């Protein structure tokens, strides 16, 4: 897109970089290599020493391999979670905007109650009580994540609902289901996609927060890596630095891209185009 701001371009380059990183690590892992394994004789080696590009963590695993696995894990998990939340949210938003008052106010009540409530706290509660792994976390984050999308989708459906082309489609007798996904959904997609991009960074943050608190999730979670790293901050500050930078890069990329896309979609927005 020509009218994307510089920020959005930087964001998309960053995102692309992480995608290629994650996917190539996944391919390498599948066909050639093996997952980083603990090796206590190699613990806490500094970067560029003994053939380790970024050094090793407290279990003697190559930090570069751990971070790569983290990219793969975080992106995969973020996509799975954000896409599911968005799908549920769009359908719920559609029902809220288009269905009869009784059903819509019921769903709206649930959505609002979840929306007001702090996401991370619900996630901490469920994860600590259920002691689940990645799958439980996915269910939890989807359960608390969909109302955000539903609210936006609802507003968008209300905006589109009475547009002339939708009325015409209704007039020629299109079925409600078809009206929903063929006629109206494409019109609201851009807004949902922006939300999805920003949602991805939100999921990455939440996932690593829970990882940091030691609540399940994968051993490749950046949060878990950081919680180990903070205990050896005096001996090996480089682990904190490299892990933080890796994590910050993808979050920054997604936020820049999301903000940039939003500015490009909404000409009234006050975000500056540089």
């Amino acid at each position, binding site marked *: 897109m020509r009218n994307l701001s510089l920020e959005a371009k930087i964001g998309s380059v960053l995102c692309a970089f992480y995608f290629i990183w994650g996917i190539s690590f996944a391919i390498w892992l599948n066909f050639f290599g093996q997952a980083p394994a603990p090796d206590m004789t190699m613990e806490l080696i500094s970067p560029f020493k003994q053939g380790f590009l970024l050094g090793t963590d407290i279990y003697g695993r190559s930090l570069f391999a751990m971070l790569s696995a983290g990219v793969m894990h975080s992106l995969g998990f973020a996509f799975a979670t954000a896409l599911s939340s968005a799908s549920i949210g769009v359908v719920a938003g559609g029902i809220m905007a288009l269905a009869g008052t009784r059903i819509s106010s019921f769903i709206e009540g649930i959505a609002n109650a979840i929306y007001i409530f702090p996401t991370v706290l619900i996630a901490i509660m469920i994860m600590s009580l259920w002691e689940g792994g990645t799958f439980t976390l996915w269910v939890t984050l989807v359960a608390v994540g969909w109302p955000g999308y539903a609210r936006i989708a609802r507003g968008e459906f209300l905006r589109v609902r009475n547009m002339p082309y939708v009325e015409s489609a209704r007039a020629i007798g299109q079925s409600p289901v078809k009206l929903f996904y063929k006629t109206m959904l494409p019109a609201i997609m851009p807004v949902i996609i922006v939300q999805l991009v920003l949602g991805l960074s939100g999921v990455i943050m939440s996932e690593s927060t829970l990882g940091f608190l030691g609540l399940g999730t994968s051993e490749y979670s950046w949060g878990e890596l950081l919680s180990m790293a903070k205990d050896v901050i005096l001996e090996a500050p480089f682990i904190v630095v490299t892990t933080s930078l890796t994590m910050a890069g993808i979050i*920054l990329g997604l*936020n820049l891209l999301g903000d940039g896309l939003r500015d490009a979609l909404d000409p009234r927005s006050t975000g500056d185009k540089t």
Partner: protein
Amino acid sequence: MIKSLLKGLVTAWFVATAAFFCLRLSPGDPVERILGAQARPEQIELYRTSLGLDLPIMTQYRVFLTNLVQLDWGKSLFKDKTVLELIREAMVPTATLAVIAVSLAFVLASLLGVYAAKNRGNLIDHLLRFLTLSALSFPIFSLAPILIILFAIELGWLPVSELISPLHYILPCLSLIIPLTSVLSRVIRNQYLESTGEPWINVLRAKGLGDGAITFRIYKVCLPTILNVVSMQLSVVLAGAMITETIFDIPGLGKLLLGAIENRDYPLVQGLIIYTSLIYLLLYVITDIVNAKIDPRLESAK
């Protein structure tokens, strides 16, 4: 006002119910998990009866809600204190941290945001945008260790753990203030810019009001939106304060919660979650009411 109170109450009930059912319906038997695998069946039975877990689930739910309202939140399974006592003790450091962080961030963000908006498009505006965006890319649990490395280890200026002197508050507060200021200053800047184009400002200018007075009035118009964002951010601050505590070894709510999770101290976990949610909801309702007071349009719209 009544409506927002009602909304808060409904959500509070929702949270309590969610906490209750999450615990009761969690996979595995909580009693067996608490007592460990070596426990004899009679022991397990006895413990279950003492906790009231042998009753039908709806009866348990009723008892749970009644106790909740009567402020009988049960006892910690490991420490010889009630849940509420433990929470009251741990509340002080967390609240101190959160209040200092929120108020400082609010002032700082107002100054930065208004300044950036008034100098829209120049170098400082861009620099601030860049800095705030970068700061937001570091979650609090990576920001705090980086601050430790920078100020405590490399430069050696500030102490790290516990809260002995005011100096010890600086790093924990800073790791809360930086992200909050970043979010708020961006919101304030954009909100301020959105209001500057409105016709009533020209009227003020025509009346001969000074620049400072006009800035103040625009800021006042933005205030409800800003307060809304602050209240949305409060959950982030609460969670952030809890994470900060674990990093800086501060005996607050966060450390209590993590310890409780590690020990599987279910009454304590449940109590802490409900307590933090209630605080959060209370603040949410207060924001709603304050907003209506500041901006009469909101009240009449309802």
